[in-house]
């Protein structure tokens, strides 16, 4: 099963039909929710990643990591929950859209990076003690990758409509 086929299936799905029938403001409102999700996700990621890259060292990392990770996860789920119906409205229209092929692999890489950072010894240790320089470098690397992948995903996503 290829990607265009999946997109046409999504458009023909009950979710697609339901979303298309919601009225003239529905697309704009779903789009708004999607943006709010991305704002929550990227805003908190930016804060945490800059801290991991060495900005605002006077703020303890453990004090920043809890609210930013919680907000980022919440924002991500809002973005997914609004993004799927938004795509389903006319998914088939995007079957030849190259930005989709930038956005979704970038999200996959970003999530892989989240998983790798969270299982690292440095990330586990940051809650209970100060980090050694190699550990700080490990997290700074994760933060650079995070910013690269999420910015790529957001850029790809925003450009979908301009293809």
């Amino acid at each position: 099963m290829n990607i265009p086929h999946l997109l046409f299936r999504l458009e023909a799905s009950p979710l697609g039909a339901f979303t298309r029938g919601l009225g003239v403001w529905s697309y704009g409102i779903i789009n708004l929710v999607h943006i709010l999700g991305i704002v929550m996700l990227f805003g908190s990621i930016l804060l945490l990643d800059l801290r991991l890259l060495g900005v605002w060292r006077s703020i303890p990392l453990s004090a920043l990591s809890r609210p930013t990770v919680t907000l980022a996860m919440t924002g991500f789920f809002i973005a997914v929950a609004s993004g799927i119906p938004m795509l389903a409205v006319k998914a088939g229209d995007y079957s030849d859209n190259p930005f989709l092929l930038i956005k979704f692999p970038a999200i996959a890489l970003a999530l892989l990076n989240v998983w790798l950072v969270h299982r690292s010894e440095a990330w586990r240790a940051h809650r209970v003690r100060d980090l050694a320089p190699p550990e700080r470098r490990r997290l700074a690397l994760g933060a650079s990758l995070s910013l690269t992948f999420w910015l790529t995903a957001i850029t790809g996503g925003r450009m979908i409509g301009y293809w």
Partner: protein
Amino acid sequence: MPRFHPALFAAAVLFAATPGALSPAWAHHGWGGQEEQVTSLTGTVVEGVSMAGPHATMKIRSGNDVWDLTLAPPARTARSGLKEGLIPVGATVTVRGNRNSDHSRHEMKTISIRHGSAEYHVYPDRE
């Protein structure tokens, strides 16, 4: 007094440079990629007005070609008096708009649609 942070500075520069790097894409709302002149097209409706998505759409057949018509955003299209199902499939309509500069694509950003004695001006300011 805020300190100078190289990482923050680099991020800010990157951010500020983004719109410049992507500027051709901003042409969308000026209908870039469309011809300046207004084209008139008569055909029969293949797919009636759909109010789903960022813009309302419909499809008409003119000669051997099926045209994708892009209307205004749904709420604005509705304010012109158009509704889904108002113009039946098979009806003859005359549309005016700016066609895609790429003539291999039969696509038009629609300004107005005439159906019988009714005329719907979805973008009256672009006449």
